[in-house]
């Protein structure tokens, strides 16, 4: 096991140095990939005419089902597509990732995180519109979509078939890596750390049994994805939204419990955003970690959501674009901000060892100061979030594998077995290499996806604006008014 973990650390180191190539600009290391994602978000926000703001109400109406044809009842609704996508993204990024951002970048990272969430809404809208527009329906009626398909097929329509195929293949390779890394190892790593923590830490009952917890996770994940045991997935689906509600409520309790500190915390967040008292170097450092953790959490521009949203029943691809813009809003602007406020308001971020313990532990400590019993609940939440994220990402990885190697049971099962092996490695390895590998692979997806989005920017805008103008003119009405 040690040899495997060591070999993994080496690979992770090399990958990170490529994906996170960060020239030093003005004394601060600037990871170009983070700049890449934020520039894309900003571009699409402007390019689509701030549709992330203008279309917000319409997005809510779509999710409520106001525009759903009653004859389509029984098929995948906008709400269901959104809920599935959100359960894949809401997870450790919202709990551990935010804690990492603030422990490194100071409270100011929060403001940049929110901003990244805001522009991320536009990228998400762009990619999910394309996801539905270029999805594929197989003869048996199953629907699948995602960047692989729009990169290949939409670019081919522009006479860029070769470029499209290359981008699609590179994207698929990275999505397999992202699935194994951020979607799997990072999840099992942090969930395991949390279980060890609540059972007495490294010297506690389970201190040296990280690998065993990993094996248990692997068995459960395997039961769902290989064994097809739907009841486990069913339970997770039901419990995860409930846990998310509990989590946000607990954040609110902590924030309201420190009512008098709210102005000071808000001040720290705003002034910190421009002065950056964190350890990564000034305001730019705060900005970069804020952007990075937001991107890791809401996955805007990475292309994963386009896979999840593609199954929706709709005749208008743009509708799912509108619905998808709610995802970074829920994930980053609401949930990540809650976590950040909790950590800032309790002062947990200023502990001398804050950047050292990082991750879930820091969030847990912030809660503990107000709700002493909460770390146990948090541990359960982390495990449930991690589990649902793993199930979602195993699907993304499987789709990418099928794209590269063809549909078929043999290919599918090989991937699934590799997936559960990585679950165990994730639990046994240290946080550092795991988080580096996870970040590298997940962010690399964004490189190829966004190149494609730029080429397809005109298609995206035409689809969205032609739909939106029909909504505004009243040509497309709510079903109750037809």
């Amino acid at each position, binding site marked *: 096991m040690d040899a495997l973990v060591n070999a993994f650390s080496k690979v992770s180191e090399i990958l990170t140095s490529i994906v996170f190539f960060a020239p030093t600009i003005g004394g601060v290391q600037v990871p170009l990939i983070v700049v890449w994602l934020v520039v894309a978000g900003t571009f699409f926000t402007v390019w689509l005419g701030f549709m992330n703001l203008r279309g917000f109400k319409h997005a809510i109406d779509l999710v409520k089902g106001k525009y759903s044809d009653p004859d389509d009842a*029984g098929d995948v609704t906008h709400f*269901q597509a959104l809920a599935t996508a959100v359960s*894949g993204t809401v997870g450790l990024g919202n709990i551990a990732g935010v804690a990492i951002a603030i422990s490194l970048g100071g409270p100011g990272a929060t403001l940049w995180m929110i901003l990244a969430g805001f522009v991320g809404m536009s990228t998400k809208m762009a990619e999910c519109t394309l996801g539905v527009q270029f999805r594929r329906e197989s003869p048996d009626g199953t629907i699948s979509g995602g960047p692989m398909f729009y990169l290949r097929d939409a670019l081919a329509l522009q006479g860029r078939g070769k470029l499209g195929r290359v981008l699609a293949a590179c994207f698929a390779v990275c999505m397999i890596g992202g699935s194994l890394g951020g979607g799997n190892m990072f999840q099992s790593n942090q969930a395991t750390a949390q279980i060890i923590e609540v059972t007495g830490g490294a010297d506690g009952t389970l201190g040296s049994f990280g690998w065993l917890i990993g094996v248990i996770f692997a068995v459960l994940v395997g039961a769902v994805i290989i064994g097809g045991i739907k009841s486990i997935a069913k339970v997770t689906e039901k419990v995860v939204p409930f846990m998310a509600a509990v989590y946000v409520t607990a954040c609110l309790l902590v924030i309201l419990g420190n009512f008098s500190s709210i102005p000071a915390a808000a001040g720290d967040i705003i002034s910190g955003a421009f002065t950056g008292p964190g350890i990564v170097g000034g305001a730019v450092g705060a900005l970069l970690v804020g952007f990075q953790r937001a991107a890791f959490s809401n996955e805007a521009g990475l292309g994963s959501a386009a*896979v999840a949203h593609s199954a929706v029943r709709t005749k208008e691809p743009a509708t799912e674009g509108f619905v998808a813009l709610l995802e970074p809003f829920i994930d980053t602007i609401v949930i990540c901000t809650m976590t950040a406020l909790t950590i800032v308001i309790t002062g947990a971020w200023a502990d001398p060892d804050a950047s050292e313990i990082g991750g879930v532990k820091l969030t847990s400590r912030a809660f503990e100061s107000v709700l002493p019993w909460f770390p146990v609940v948090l541990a359960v939440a982390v495990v449930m979030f991690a589990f649902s994220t793993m199930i979602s990402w195993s699907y993304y990885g499987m789709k990418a594998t099928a794209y590269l190697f063809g549909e078929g049971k043999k290919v599918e099962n090989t991937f699934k077995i590799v997936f559960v092996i990585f679950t165990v490695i994730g639990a046994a390895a240290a946080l550092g290499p795991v988080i580096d590998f996870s970040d590298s692979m997940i962010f690399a997806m964004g490189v190829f996806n966004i190149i494609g989005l730029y080429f397809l920017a005109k298609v995206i805008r035409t689809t969205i604006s032609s739909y939106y103008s029909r909504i505004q003119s009243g040509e497309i009405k709510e079903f109750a008014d037809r």
Partner: protein
Amino acid sequence: MATVLIGVDNSEASTRAVEFALERADAEDLQLVVAHVINWSPFSFNTNTENEERPARRKAEIAAADEQVIAPMVSLVEAAGRKASTQIRHGHPSETLIDIAEEVGASHIVVGRTGDSGLREAIFGSVVMKLVHVSPLPVTVVP
């Protein structure tokens, strides 16, 4: 000619509901609509795999309902020498039955007494109870 909507599932009580409606139809010359609602919510939480398979499953569910629920009821109706139109929908059972009743212009809904059973009914109450509570039309519950 007045229309009667008969809400059915695959229970014995549904058979009795159809038989009851047939008796009334003979006496009053009614038009019959036999409907089955597949319990489904637009706001449930699914996995990616479930979503991917959903369109195919939806078709399969409708086909199964047609074969196992609707067909036996229709043959009862035909054996009595009458005709019935049919409806199969996904949705919230009692609400969707009312929607169908309004669409087909029914003046009356007939259902069998038992639908759900056991724990579910103990917790949520039965479809029939809800229907009786909220229906804007007269409802006959056949024991």
